[in-house]
């Protein structure tokens, strides 16, 4: 069994990222950012790049930090806590994982690379029909996360993975449910492309993404729980803090128990992905099957237990709710991952 705790380096990393996000990514900034056309917030993203935490699992000889997905998972927790509007998932997780799996980390030297699949794609799912004709790609990929930041788009086509210069694609922004993670449709019309790997690199990237997205869900759930507890302690109705009512306190106790379970599941998945453990497919599917529901529940309880204020635009609860629900669909729903687990654990449906 892998180490499910946090090391000292990870604690320091967390403190550094949290401090950066506190400075550049307060929720008032995040809320204001949702009403601009900017696809992501520049200050926190530039800060993360400058800290080097966007390239933690990349080997040092390819310009990375030579750390692992375990540390990246801690960064994802913090990004979830802040609902940070940065293109970390598409670039630093999915894109980087695809390049590492394809043995093409050198592509990162050009700048961020983003995996061009619909964000709802689960590991092993079919991908959109993009044709590769003599080194040129034609097709449309809808609902791609973080496409705007891509110097390189990594596009699955005809059972392989291709690298396309970001400027060779037509990128159309769509209005996304999660205002802090913008989606775009990517159209390719004979775009020049270079084959860099097989379909297995796409599956590996999505599996790593599933494990790491669970960390974001954990951080989000934990933050929602904290906001809710703080409110329950300070909001008075009928002459007493509403947190003294058992109907509410039992619900947050259950939520806290669920969040502590999510932490164990997330650490296990991060450890498996980092070490290439034989149990990685199970660990990643388990992480998504378990954490999606917990993040959604935490955000929904945050809205409900805040009462009227939780239903307003000015309170941050809705930012968490939209991210949580969107995350629950991203990289496969919990039901999709339970189906995967059934196959992996030899528990056939009929």
């Amino acid at each position, binding site marked *: *069994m892998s180490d*499910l*705790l946090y090391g000292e380096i990870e604690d320091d990393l967390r403190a550094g990222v949290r401090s950066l996000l506190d400075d550049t990514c307060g929720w008032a900034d995040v809320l204001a950012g949702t009403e601009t056309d900017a696809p992501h917030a520049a200050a926190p993203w530039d800060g993360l790049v400058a800290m080097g935490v966007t390239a933690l699992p990349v080997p040092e000889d390819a310009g990375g930090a030579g750390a692992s997905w375990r540390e990246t998972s801690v960064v994802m927790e913090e990004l979830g806590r802040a609902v940070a509007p940065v293109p970390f998932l598409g670039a630093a997780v999915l894109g980087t994982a695809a390049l590492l799996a394809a043995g093409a980390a050198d592509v990162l030297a050009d700048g961020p690379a983003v995996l061009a699949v619909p964000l709802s794609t689960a590991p092993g799912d079919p991908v959109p029909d993009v044709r590769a004709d003599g080194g040129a790609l034609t097709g449309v990929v809808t609902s791609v996360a973080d496409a705007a930041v891509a110097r390189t788009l990594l596009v699955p086509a005809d059972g392989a993975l291709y690298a396309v210069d970001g400027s060779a694609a037509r990128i159309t922004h769509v209005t996304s449910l999660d205002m802090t993670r913008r989606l775009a449709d990517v159209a390719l019309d004979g775009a020049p492309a270079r084959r860099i790997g097989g379909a297995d690199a796409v599956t590996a990237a999505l599996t790593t993404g599933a494990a790491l997205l669970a960390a974001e869900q954990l951080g989000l759930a934990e933050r929602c729980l904290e906001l809710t507890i703080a409110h329950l302690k300070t909001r008075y109705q009928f002459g007493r803090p509403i947190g003294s009512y058992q109907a509410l306190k039992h619900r947050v106790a259950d939520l806290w128990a669920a969040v502590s*379970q999510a932490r*164990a*599941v997330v650490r296990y998945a991060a450890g498996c992905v980092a070490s290439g453990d034989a149990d990685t497919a199970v660990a990643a599917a388990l992480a998504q*099957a*378990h954490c999606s529901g917990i993040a959604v529940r935490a955000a929904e309880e945050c809205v409900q237990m805040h009462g009227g204020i939780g239903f307003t635009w000015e309170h941050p609860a809705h930012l968490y709710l939209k991210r949580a629900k969107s995350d629950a669909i991203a990289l496969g729903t919990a039901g999709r991952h339970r189906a995967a687990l*059934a196959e992996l654990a030899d528990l056939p449906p009929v």
Partner: protein
Amino acid sequence: MSTAPPDAAEIERRVAAFLAAHDPAAVPPREFLRARYDAGLAWVHYPEGRGGLGAARAAQPAVDRAFARAGAPGNHPERNGIGLGMAAPTLLSHGTPEQLDRFLRPLWTGEEVWCQLFSEPGAGSDLAALGTRAVRDGDGWVVDGQKVWTSMAHEARWAILVARTDPAVPKHRGMTYFVCDMHAPGVDVRPLRQLTGEAEFNEVFLTGVRIPDTDRLGAVGDGWRVATATLMNERVAIGGQAAPREGGMLGVVTRLWRERPEVRTAAGHDALMRLWVEAEAARLTGERLRQRLAAGDPGPEGSAAKLAFARLNQELSGLELELLGEDGLRYDDWTMRRPTEVDFTRRSPGYRYLRAKGNSIEGGTSEILRTIVAERVLGLPGEIRTDKDVPWKDLPK
């Protein structure tokens, strides 16, 4: 002069030396166990002279494995869970040297089984409301009252007992903790049949039972504090089992699913996979808690482990019955028996379903545990209390 506690290598040497001097095949079991206690190799984290070496708690599993490998006789911990898990640590922290001399060795060897006289018909979750009276009488006490949910009372030599010694003060202040001789006149043990048909538990009626003052544990009026220490040990004991993937009740249901394709339905599959995920999450959470304990940083997650365990056992055993359909309508045996240990796997699915209902009641109801988590872990404000500063005798009952 104090010496440093022995490390793993030193303990290993002592075990080897002990086994060389005490051939498990030749020494009678009782004598062997007594000698093992005297050598400090019983529970190595206990102090020297009390069956231990003052070593780290983490050193114990290796010692137990070494004795098991050598074919040494065991002390049957499954028959004395209350003694080993609750009475012993409470004795150690609150007992006099004379009490430790008298009680600890036969407790550990299993020669003397212990039971717990805490709950009463009128004091369940609200244990501090208990009304069994202990009245001072010369150099001892006379006890009258009724206790309930006492496992092993019919086998036990001793009991840990909490009784009310001062009804005129608020309830938490007027209790005292005793060791009660289960063979004393006036102790009447009657089986308490539960919804499974058997009787793991007993009712214990105490009528004019004399307890010498030397069998009091802690100060007069300090019983709540001592009892709280005991109950913390109980929750650790109930929530802390290690399990492999698909262990416990989940394993029972996944075996059924794989071996009997005719039980499979779409709804059953959905329920099974949801519970598979929950059970695996609970298992990893337990593993993470163990890693924290090993790193010397125990987290509060233990309180949540019992909540999850109870829920999973109940949901899974309910699913098993439904999957079985017609077979789920049958029960193995309603005969009234008095088992000394609970084994979910050896009985029928109906038994498992019914017995699991106790998991969210015994050792603290799930509702009380949620309140404890909310107030002690999350710091939420307490319930409005109507019994706080009221003398026990004036409380509505």
